[in-house]
């Protein structure tokens, strides 16, 4: 079966909306993983985040504001 990414995304969004409307999930509730990640996976995510930090190093501008280059509006 061939699935289109955009269709999947749309379906995912609509399903989430339905679940919220039905009260099955609460988007405001803090989520804690039921199944803990193993140490290797945690380390991978940690390193991926550091990689982004290296790739998009944040800095403070002349007004003391934090600039996060990944979010900078071009």
């Amino acid at each position: 079966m061939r699935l289109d990414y955009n269709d999947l995304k749309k379906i995912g969004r609509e399903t989430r909306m339905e679940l919220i409307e039905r009260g099955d999930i609460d988007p405001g509730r803090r989520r804690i993983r039921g199944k803990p990640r193993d140490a290797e996976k945690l380390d991978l995510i940690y390193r991926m985040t550091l990689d982004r930090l290296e790739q998009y190093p944040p800095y403070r501008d002349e007004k003391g504001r934090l600039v996060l280059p990944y979010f900078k509006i071009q």
Partner: protein
Amino acid sequence: MNRAALKKLLTVEDESRRRAVFVALLSGEMVRRGAERPIVVGGEAVELYTQGRYTTGDIDLKGRKETLEAILAEWGFVRQGRIWVSKEYGIYIDWLGGSLDEGAKAENKTNIIALDDENEIRVVSLEDLIIDRLCAAKYWNDQDSLMWSKNLMEILVRTGGPDRQYLKARAEKEKVADILSSILPEEGDK
């Protein structure tokens, strides 16, 4: 701001970027209406500081409720319980109160994130966010939160360094000083 300007959000494919732009637009509108910029807390704050590496579903905000709700209603959001939802933009707003629970000191420590010259977001400080994650690690045994607190510490070190006195005082109060000491770099260390 008119709805047409808001529609530009739909062209932002990356959801973490879309949430960031949305909060900046919302903040600007709140300021235009005489309210203070809302403060981003919780998962969205982690998402912002980690530049999208951590992802969240909703945006937790502190700020003036009446202004916030008036704007969201005008922008087509629908209230579901305490959450404001926009199907169109795929954005969920959770209003969590008028001010930070941690008090005035925490409010003074908030950061302003600049997306460009005009668009700004006010976010809970890295110090307070680290303590929040350490509490989750200790009391809920959430190893993910411990990992995120280490990442946030790294970001803090690279953006001016931690306010050690403040961090330690907060950690003592929340009884997480033991875990804090395991992630706080030695003074003088980068």
